[in-house]
């Protein structure tokens, strides 16, 4: 059974479960286990982990930040190194590792959840949660316009470059914010106004409901999976309040 066959609500339940475990797990071993489960299930359901490649850069930068913060500010354990006012304590590294593992689980689970369903599935899922379709459909709309906006921004930058604006270094980019961002903003406002008008003139919002070209229905395996995950969370919560051991 592929990931795409699962109902988005099942994927949401899995996402919640992963976030929950990343938050309640305290040791590096527990967190490693959760991350392993997350990665293995992804591999089984999608057959490849290629799509998560881009995420590694984000995780690397995030990990570097967590490590720096822990090295500079952690005051737990024994002092193992001192250089001027910089003091490094023995607990800094384990805390940084658990922090990085928690961040990895959250980023990985988020990426999987948000890339495994189509915009239409998100819209339908939000409607199942009783969110009015006028708002739920905005998800699809934002997905639709993102690539267009990106292409337009590139054209704007090109246009200003031909007028002599330098966009080569970070400082150039900073200086070029006004000439590039303002046309982008004007265009976005104009587009938003035109899109909204086009939608209204095609009857958007004339009634409380509308016909969707597809529908969401929980299948027996979705129900079983969601029930199972809810049960795991419930048992874990009960165990937290009334520890068995």
């Amino acid at each position, binding site marked *: 059974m592929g990931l795409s066959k699962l109902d988005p609500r099942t994927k949401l339940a899995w996402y919640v479960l992963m976030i929950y475990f990343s938050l309640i797990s305290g040791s590096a071993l527990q967190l490693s286990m959760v991350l392993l489960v997350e990665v293995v299930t992804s591999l089984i359901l999608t057959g490849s982990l290629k799509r998560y490649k881009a995420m590694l850069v984000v995780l690397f930068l995030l990990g570097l930040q967590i490590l720096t913060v822990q090295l500079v500010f952690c005051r737990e354990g024994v002092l193992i190194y001192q250089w001027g006012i910089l003091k490094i304590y023995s607990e800094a590294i384990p805390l940084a590792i658990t922090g990085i593992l928690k961040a990895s689980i959250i980023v990985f689970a988020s990426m999987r959840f948000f890339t495994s369903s189509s915009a239409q599935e998100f819209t339908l899922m939000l409607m199942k949660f009783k969110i009015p379709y006028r708002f739920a459909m905005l998800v699809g709309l934002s997905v639709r316009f993102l690539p267009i906006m990106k292409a337009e921004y590139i054209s704007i930058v090109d246009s200003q470059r*031909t007028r002599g604006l330098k966009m080569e270094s970070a400082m150039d980019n900073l200086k070029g914010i006004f000439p590039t961002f303002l*046309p982008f903003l004007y265009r976005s406002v*104009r*587009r938003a106004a035109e899109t*909204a008008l*086009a939608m209204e003139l095609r009857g958007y919002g004339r009634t409380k409901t509308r016909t969707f070209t597809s529908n969401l229905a929980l299948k027996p395996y979705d129900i079983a999976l969601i029930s199972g995950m809810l049960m795991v969370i419930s048992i874990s919560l009960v165990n937290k309040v009334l520890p068995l051991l």
Partner: protein
Amino acid sequence: METIAKVNIEKLVFPDEDKPALKNIDFEINRGDFIVITGGVASGKSVLLHSITGAIPHYHKAELTGKVTIMGQDIKDMHLNRMSDYVGYMMQEPQNQIIGLDVYEDVAFGLGNLEIPIKQIDQRVKNTLEFVGLSGYENRETTSLSGGQAQRVVLAGVLALNAPILVLDQPTAELDPLGRDELYKRLGQLNKTQNLTIILVMDRIEEVLNYANRVFYIQGGEIVKQYSPEAYYKEQIESRKERLKSLHTVQGKFNELIAKVTDVTYTYKDHLSGCEDINLEIVKGDFLAIIGLNGSGKSTLAKLLIGLLKPSKGEIRVFDQTLNKEKLAEIRFRAGFLFQNPDYQIFASTVEEEVGFSLKLRGEQNEVIEQKIDECLKFVGLLDYKKLHPHRLSRGQRQLLALASILVSDPEFIIADEPTSGLDETQGYMIMDKLFHLSKSGKTILLITHDLTMAKEYSNRIVAMHNHRLQLDILTRDLEEYLKTLKAIGLNFHNIISFREVQNGTVEA
């Protein structure tokens, strides 16, 4: 004939404006009419369409004195999202009006809002896509559509609603000659066979007049003249002939090479071909028109010439220097690039500030900047607007502003990428006249266009591109000899004055 709508606008004034955008408008629309609206820059054409569709006063606030009724109902009393029962409206930029992620979803969008059962939606989407020539495109992602395809998808979405009136604002602005011809044929067919009432703001006079029965000329917010298509065509052709009499294409005589493209190929990241094995020489004083259908590689070539893209293979020399990173700034100092959409560059809060931007970047002195701004604004006819916010100008005026922003740097070589796209004919000629004057004063112009009329009338040399390759490089005066070759690649110069096709009211096309 049954009257389907009555438009009586004594006065329409936008907030914070003194002058009315429309005044003394009074006409009736009969079922089956095919009305073409034309007029000068910022004359009120689109405002009139907005008033008929209910966008004014429901969406854009304005004080409307008068009454617009459709099928006996005052549009002031109708909610905007109920207007789809009466009017289908297609605006200028198709990508702004596509809502669905795939073609099926977009065409079905309006039908879904009407709560039509899914089986009927399926059938109507299928039929409409077939009608606009997009059968089999149901699952195509809308972001991957070309300009022409996107325009047809929007048309399908509007037509699927079966409204009795279809309102279109420059529907062929992004289409090449072939796409334009096809779209007008389809509209003509709808008008004749289904008695669909069509009101359209015209961008080019040639094709659409074959199908129209009334022409309104609007000026200063007022319909100053109503024509039969024949009378309008006659008048326009006469005035065009007069205008073109003054054009004598004598450029390209300097023998100094401005740009040389040698065996250039460009491939996009996704392995899509941009252009292949291009060899081209541009001589000082040339007014060179590069023509071709949408996607033929014209714009890629233009971007290569200004260094926005780097050739995957081959060499480009501009001003006798190899176009590379080191020489780029120097080359761009002497060359200007006019983009298709002026809004890609406008950011300043006044017209004069916008024009002076390049000079400020070059560190010119204030007195010089001011003098050059005035000169350029005078040249493009915008001197009176120098203190105005650029976005208060019409689209045509904004394109002139973009041209002034380039001219202020006094470039020797100007590349204009479809500068008349999105403009109506009057505005288009205005831009072309300015480019022609520049060419006469010794500037080298490279015009990327799919407007064959303009290519023919203004250039001294025509280069035709097809399937990313340079197919033909000829002098414009020899055009007649190559008409067959050009027709074979979808560039039909015979069609540019196609109104003659109409004989006794029947369309031969």
